Each structure stands twice: as structure tokens, then as C-alpha cells.
């Protein structure tokens, strides 16, 4: 059913790959659209739908032009029912198609949560593999755009607790395209979280500085054609010896900025896939550095950082020189006016790194 095109694979350590001949994608939006375009072209069962994704091309433009190119039956608008979008996708996947759906903001996934948790995640298990659910649910995630409590959330921990799901969050265009294509190829349901603050440029948390474009970033240009970044593999974004920082999505850039500014020789790991987790890479790093800071934008309590801290203290107990620190969004809803007091920016990450290093 599916043609097997040439497959360019980008692995953890080899992320410097750049554009090819024609017009490589130079924003995360372009990279995502490009991945969808490749998937729609290669696999006739891929079907893209969601609110405003068809004619209009999505409120973030991630599907712009796809309906025109591939036809309304491959990329179409839906009514405003997240439950319906995901429920329909599950049925369609059970039939044998590959739905790739968009939830307009991660904050609006809750109406679909029952279908995701009780149905998509468990269909393979409860039928011993007779029916499966290879769907991808894309959703813009995170804050930094003055979107307040309902356009800023990072609900990843609500998915990592759900066995049967895979959970992915890219931090740059090259990964975004390669991970999305892997997610679409995956035989199981994948939650694909897109840090919307990264759509148009790498953002390191310095909201008062000019926006820098992806063009100038080493991971900014997603190559043309099909390539895969495998699920379940973290990437080391900065090698270092003093401290390990675990981050994903926007926070990778914030962590890198904090580390540069403090001149701390930290190893910064971009998890990329949260479930299943690349524990090996994490453990190897923390055993080496002996110190660990976990960073995410989601609220602290029961966030995914808790799982990371729990795993690291269990696996690296004898190597740890200091407790694992977590830097996260405060345990409050995401406020509007005080967005930048809420956001765990480089100053907070730097302070945590210093605290962890101070412990002797």
C-alpha cells in the first residue's frame, strides 16, 4: 500500500545535516508542512484533518496549500469537536488509514482526552493486536505568545502517564520534520507536541530581545524529501562535564542560553521523545556529570520532570553529588500580563544550575 521512498535517517549524534538542492524549509512551520506533504505524497492512506486545516491551512499555517495540492479528501476541515476529530481518526485508523490530525491548541485537547486515553492508547492491547490505532495527533504547545491560560499549556505529563501512547516534542525544524515522519510511520498512536513559540525562530527565553530566524540556526533548515529522526532517541545539544540539563521543546534553547551565559560546562540533552524515553543517554550523562537539572515549561507538580527526577535519582544514585533540581512553570494557570514572570526563563534555569553546582 505504501511506497518505500529513499529514506534519509538522522540520528542522535549526527544532527548537523542541512538543506539540499531546492528550497529547504526554514521555519518549523514549513518543516512540519513539508513532512505532511511528503507523507501525503508517499502514502495514499495518510489523511490530514482538523479545525481550519483545510481550505485555510491552519491558524498557524502548518497545512497551508496541502488541500490544494492533495485534494479535499486528503486534507479537510472539521467541525469544532476535538472528541470528534480524534474519535473519527481512531475509527479511520482501525479501517486502515493513517490519520494525522491537528488539535488547534494543546489546551483544547481535553474534550478528546477520553478517546485518546481510553481508546487510542488501548486498542492494540485490548484486541491483542487485531485492531490498531496508528494515528498522529499534532498540537501547538507552550506559552510565550501572550496566549494566557488557554493558549499556553504544556500537557505532556498527561500523556506520558498513559501507557500505549508515544509522546514527542521537537525543538527545531530538522527534528520536527524527521520526527513527524517517524510518528506518521509509527504503528501506534503518537502525540506530537509542537512548541508554538519555536514556530518562527529559536527562542531562548529572552523575550525582550529581537526574534532570531531559524535560517541562521544549525538545526534551522529541514532538508527536502523524506528522512526520519527515530522516536525514542535523545540528542545531546551541548557536550559538557559539570552538569546535565534535561530539556525538550522551547526549553532546550532556554537551557542552552542559560548555560552559555553562566559559562557553566553543562551537557544539555534534548529529549525529543518523552515516551518511550532515551534513558540510556540520560543516565550515561548524569553518571558522568554527577549533577542534573530538569527543565520544562509545564507546571511543576506531577509534571514530566518528576518522572525524570525519579528515574535519575534511581539510576544515578551513587553518582549524584547534588539533588536533581526541577525548573518548571509555577503551579498556577498561565497568566496573561505576567507571562514573563511565569515563564521559566534563562535566569531561573541559570540559578538552578548554580544551586546544583554549589552543593559540594
Amino acid at each position, binding site marked *: 500500500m505504501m511506497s518505500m521512498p529513499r529514506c534519509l535517517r538522522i540520528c542522535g549524534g549526527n544532527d548537523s545535516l542541512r538543506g539540499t538542492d531546492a528550497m529547504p524549509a526554514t521555519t518549523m512551520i514549513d518543516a512540519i508542512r513539508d513532512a505532511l506533504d511528503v507523507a501525503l505524497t508517499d502514502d495514499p492512506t495518510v489523511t490530514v484533518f482538523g479545525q481550519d486545516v483545510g481550505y485555510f491551512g491552519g491558524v498557524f499555517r502548518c497545512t497551508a496549500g496541502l488541500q490544494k495540492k492533495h485534494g479535499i479528501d486528503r486534507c479537510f476541515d472539521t467541525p469544532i469537536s476535538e472528541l470528534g476529530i480524534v474519535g*473519527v481518526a481512531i475509527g479511520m485508523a*482501525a479501517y486502515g488509514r493513517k490519520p494525522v490530525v491537528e488539535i488547534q491548541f494543546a489546551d483544547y485537547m481535553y474534550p478528546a482526552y477520553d478517546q485518546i486515553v481510553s481508546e487510542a492508547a488501548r486498542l492494540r492491547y485490548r484486541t491483542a493486536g487485531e485492531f490498531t490505532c496508528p494515528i498522529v495527533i499534532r498540537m501547538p504547545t507552550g506559552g510565550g505568545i501572550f496566549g494566557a491560560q488557554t493558549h499556553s499549556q504544556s500537557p505532556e505529563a498527561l500523556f506520558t502517564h498513559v*501507557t500505549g501512547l508515544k509522546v514527542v516534542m521537537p525543538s527545531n525544524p530538522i527534528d520536527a520534520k524527521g520526527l513527524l515522519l517517524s510518528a506518521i510511520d509509527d504503528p501506534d498512536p503518537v502525540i506530537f507536541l509542537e512548541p508554538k513559540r519555536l514556530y518562527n525562530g529559536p527562542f531562548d527565553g529572552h523575550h525582550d530581545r529581537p526574534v532570531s530566524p531559524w535560517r541562521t540556526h544549525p538545526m534551522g533548515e529541514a532538508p527536502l524529501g523524506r528522512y526520519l529522526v527515530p522516536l525514542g532517541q535523545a540528542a545531546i545539544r551541548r557536550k559538557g562535564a559539570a552538569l546535565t540539563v534535561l530539556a525538550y521543546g522551547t526549553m532546550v534553547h532556554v537551557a542552552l542560553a542559560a548555560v552559555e551565559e553562566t559559562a557553566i560546562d553543562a551537557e544539555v540533552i534534548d529529549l525529543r521523545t518523552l515516551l518511550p524515553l532515551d534513558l540510556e543517554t540520560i543516565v550515561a550523562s548524569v553518571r558522568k556529570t554527577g549533577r542534573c537539572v530538569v527543565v520544562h515549561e509545564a507546571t511543576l507538580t506531577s509534571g514530566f520532570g518528576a518522572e525524570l527526577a525519579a528515574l535519575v535519582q534511581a539510576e544515578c544514585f551513587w553518582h549524584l553529588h547534588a539533588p536533581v533540581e526541577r525548573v518548571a512553570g509555577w503551579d498556577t494557570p498561565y497568566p496573561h500580563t505576567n507571562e514573563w514572570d511565569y515563564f521559566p526563563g534563562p535566569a531561573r534555569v541559570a540559578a538552578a544550575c548554580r544551586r546544583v553546582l554549589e552543593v559540594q
Partner: protein
Amino acid sequence: MKPVERPLELFFAEPAVRPGAEPDFSGLDLPAAGSLRRPPVDSPAEEMRDMAFGLIRLLDDDGQAVGPWADTLDLDDAARMSGLRHMMTLRAYDARMLLAQRQQKTSFYMQHLGEEAISCAFHLALRSGDMNFPTYRQAGLLIASGYPMATMMCQVYGNDGDPVRGRQLPVFYSSKSHGFFSISGNLGTQYVQAVGWAMGSALSGDDKIAAAWIGDGSTAESDFHAALVFASGYRVPVVLNIVNNQWAISTFQGLARGGAGTFAARGLGFGIPALRVDGNDYLAVVAAARWASERARRSLGPTLIEYVTYRVAGHSTSDDPSAYRPSGESACWPLGDPLMRLKQHLIARGLWSEDRHVQAEAEIMGEVQAAQKEAEQIGTLHSGRRPSPAEMFNDVYAEMPPHLRRQRQLAGY
């Protein structure tokens, strides 16, 4: 603020009678068999409003099939006879499995008593490759399609012969080849999935249709709404079935229905043609289901069908209905027993007799017991061969990720 002028009041819907009182179905308006018209399948929804408030009935009190739906029903004698056989088989199967649960061979069971006609007859509207998205009360779909009964029993026992490896609650069957989608414990979720499946078929240029199933009480769930929105919006080739068996555990159907006269009426708000059918009339179910499946096959869009029936037994083996409804209520149910009604029809048609019926009952019980023996040779819930605990870790994902492998090892496998 001003003092309260006229205190507001809510309405609390209650069934006509509760335990201790005489059963009373006088509120149920029963039109005579054959009295409702049969509109062309491509009539606009707006011109078929009456169909959502009438009742399609073919079998009259004498067992004759009458009226326009009967006249156009293409069902030979053999099919009518196997219809009876399927219902008898389902009833015998239920009786044995109920007993098995009482004997603690399994944890739980749910019967179809009184509702056998619906799933057994609906099967005749489908073709191979079509897909049902059932609830826990449509095992007749499996029986009518010839699914091996011993395998059903293995599922109920959760033994090593259970295709779903002891993972699901008893009666949560699953069979792709027999057009029977996995049952979910979460009410309603399957309704919108059926719509998605049918959309998948259409988008693939296929001709397979889907059938969604839901109970009267569960129509209140969100998935029901989403299903109707999408089915109506894209004119999806799906048959949307509502089994109104009067009860949702202890809650009578009037609460979920609210101010609407019928559940079928729900379709009208979406421009979806809706039929209301005597669910205890095997022939009526076949006729209505075929009408709806023809609409689907001709890409005319979805049809909503309400089957009016009665849940004779408790909700499940965990339930005691005498706590919330008069004990004699089922005996007074005016639509009768679906088996007896089809039997009467076959007799009236000269195809059947009391003697043959008694003989068939014995034969069927023999078959059911043989299947049960076969299943029990593998095991029951608490004895015999069960799926290895190591299998607990399979099928969470297509490929077992490292953390699950570690857990399996920790578990000792």
C-alpha cells in the same frame, strides 16, 4: 435584590411505576403492525419526520407479516428459520454463561434476554467486510455470522483460548473477520469511531459500511453528539443504531430522552433520517436495517434507527433490577418476546411447529454445551490454562519499549 417572586421548579422524570406497584405500559403508544409507510430511501430527511415517531412493525398479533415494509422484504424461508435459530442460540448461550458466572467460572456476565432480535436480525443488512461498533449487548451479530461459540466462551472465561488474552472484561469480544469491533468499557466511544471507520472506507474508494451501536442511556454521552455532527456533516455511510431497552442500569429511558418523544427524534436535529422500529420484531429489524444500509451503500448518508425493546434481565450479573422496577414488568412488556413472535410467524407460515421448536431447543442446547465443554477444556477464569502473565506486557505497543521490557523482567518473565 428583590424578594423571590415565583420560585422556579425543576422537573424530575420518573418511570410510571416503581417496585411495589403494578407494571404499566399504557404510556407506550403502539401503532398496529403494517400501519407505517415505507418512504423511498432517497427521500429528504425533512419529509420523513413521521418515521421518527411511528413504529415500524411487520408481525401482527397472528404472526403475519403485513404492510409496505413486509411487502418489500426480500427474505426467504430459510433465512427466516435461521433467524429463529440464531435467537434461540443466543438465548441458550446466555443461559449457560449466566450459570457459568454463578458457578464462579468467570467474574461477570451480561445477557441479551428480550433483545435477541436486534443484533441477530441486523446482521442481515451487512455484507462481509462491513464493520459493527457494538456495545456489550450485540453478541447476536457474532452468532448470526457464525463466529465460533467456543471462542466466545474462551473470551468470557479469559482463558488461554481467549483471542484477547484475558485482557478484557467478559463479553468484550472482538473479531475483525466477523465485522465486530472491539468493545470498549467506556460507553459511547465507539459511536464516533464507527463514523470514522466509514469515512475511512469512503476515502479509500471502498464499498464497506459501518454500523454504530449505543444504548438509550448512553445517547447522553458526548460521543453520540460528535458522531451525529460528523456523520451529518460529511454524509457518512454509517447506520447509527440506538437500542432503547427502557433501562440504563436503574435509570429509565425517559431521563436521557428528556422532552423528546423518542430517541429517533435526535436525528431530526441534524437532518439525519430516523426510523423507530419494533425491536422485538425480527422482520421489522431486518427491513429497517436494510433500508438504512441501502442509504449508506448509495452514499446517501447516515440513518438513525431506534429499536424499541425491553431489557428483561438485570443490567449485568452485578445488578438486581427488582430494587428499581416492578418484578413483573417484563412479562407485561407489550411488544412480547422476540423469539415467540418469530416462532409464531414461522408456524403461521407453515415452516415450523411446537414439536420442531422443542427439538431445536434441545439440539441447540446440545451445541452450546459442547462448545462450553470445549472452552472449559482450556480453562475458566480461576482454573485451567490462562494466558501467561508475561503476555500482560505484549501489545501495549507494536514493539516493546525498554521500560516495559525492564518491568517484565522485574515481574519475573
